[in-house]
């Protein structure tokens, strides 16, 4: 052991902090080193004198004050049962949580409240299912009303009103059987050419329905107006309806058939039979086939 190390250990030696082995080594060194012995003596004197530094006696008030405090504390403990709400609150107040953590927790809570609030407000308007139900029933009712209106208007003596009824059916997404049959009977029987044309226009998009197709085919021989005949022939070509060939032939046999219409029907029969779509030179659209319809047109205007 060298002197430096020994001097380092003197305080530890005096305060009895050394282990037995360390102490033995130090004593051995001290026995042979006069310098360190002197150092030890100086330190020892200091250490002993330090021990002699005595604090004053505490005053005689200390003891009674302590017992008074103890007594009042006992009262306090008795007053508050161990697991009361107040006790919990006290415990919470006494809990020593570092401030930064507390702040972080507070801010996290605030953010959470904001998120929950925002989420709640956002979802609220979509919530009431009852309103949507009401809306659905209302729209169903409106639909029904429209159908009733169409059915009653279509029997109206005024051609304008009947036209309006037919145009209403175009707005309907899926007219029911009643409306369809009313339209078909209008197509067959209506005295006004314009109304029949409009009806045909309303029925054409519904041709996917077999009853509509059949009705259209059956209505062919019943038409006497060249305008409607031509328009029906066009629709048949568009639908590629082979069942219509027979009634079209019958039409050709009618004695008073318009020449233009005759040509057109022959062309249509040919197109339907060959299965090819109408050639470019084929008929202009039915609303434009006015060429030889002068008397009919005059009749239309007179209505």
């Amino acid at each position, binding site marked *: 052991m060298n002197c430096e190390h020994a001097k380092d250990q003197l305080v530890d030696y005096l*305060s009895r902090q050394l282990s037995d082995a360390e102490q033995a080594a130090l004593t051995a060194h001290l026995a042979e080193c006069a310098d360190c012995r002197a150092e030890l003596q100086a330190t020892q004197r200091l250490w002993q004198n330090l021990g002699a530094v005595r604090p004053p006696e505490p005053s005689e008030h200390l003891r009674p004050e302590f017992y008074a405090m103890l007594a009042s504390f006992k009262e306090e403990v008795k007053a508050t049962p161990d697991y009361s709400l107040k006790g919990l609150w006290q415990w919470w107040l006494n809990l020593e949580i570092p401030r930064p953590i507390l702040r972080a927790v507070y801010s996290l809570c605030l953010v959470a409240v904001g998120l929950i609030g925002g989420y709640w407000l956002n979802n609220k308007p979509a919530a009431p299912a009852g309103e949507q139900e009401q809306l659905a029933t209302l729209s169903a009712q409106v639909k029904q009303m429209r159908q009733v209106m169409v059915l009653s208007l279509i029997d109206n003596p005024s051609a304008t009103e009947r036209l309006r009824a037919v145009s209403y059916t175009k707005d309907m997404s899926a007219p029911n059987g009643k409306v369809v049959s009313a339209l078909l009977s209008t197509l067959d029987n209506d005295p006004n050419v314009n109304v029949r044309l409009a009806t045909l226009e309303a029925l054409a998009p519904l041709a996917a329905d077999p009853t509509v197709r059949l009705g259209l085919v059956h209505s062919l021989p019943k038409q006497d107006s060249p305008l409607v005949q031509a328009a029906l022939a066009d629709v048949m070509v568009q639908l590629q309806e082979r069942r219509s060939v027979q009634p079209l032939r019958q039409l050709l046999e009618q004695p008073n058939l318009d020449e233009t219409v005759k040509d057109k029907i022959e062309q249509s029969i040919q197109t339907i039979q060959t299965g090819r779509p109408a050639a470019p030179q084929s008929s202009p659209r039915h609303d434009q086939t006015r060429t030889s319809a002068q008397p009919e047109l005059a009749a239309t205007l007179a209505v």
Partner: protein
Amino acid sequence: MLRVKAGDVDRMGLLFERYHRPLFGFLYHMLGRSDTSEDLVQNVFYRMLKYRHTFTGEGEFRTWMYHLARNVLADHVKKNRHAKHHADVADVAEHLGGGAAADAGLERAQEVATLHQALARLSPEHREVLVLSRFQEMKYGEIAQVLGTTEGAVKVRVHRAMHELKSTYHRIEN
């Protein structure tokens, strides 16, 4: 203390009888004022009652007590930051007398008085470890527990404190 924790608060009286002197001594050395130290002794014992559930039973009661005492001391210093932290050296010297110093010769008494002044002039950190190891006769390991540090750090601090004490002592003497 475990019995106090279990609800036998009266046992605290026993602990008071056994420990209030050393505790007072520690606080006195740290503060240099007798009246304030007495108040703080009360304060420490009150905290022991209040926070008795934090005493785990691991480690010694004494360690826990000084741990609390240091907290009380730190609170007190914080509260009185503007007030003078340590009493005048003259004031300290005045308190001397009686005890071992009186038995010894005049020369020794003088030495002790000077040493007391030197101790009062040390930084609180150094004074603390010296008081704990010399007056409370605590092992380094125990002191480390009180301060919340390692034994090695305590050892180094004690050595530095002794060194500082020596030089301060010689400065006063000359």
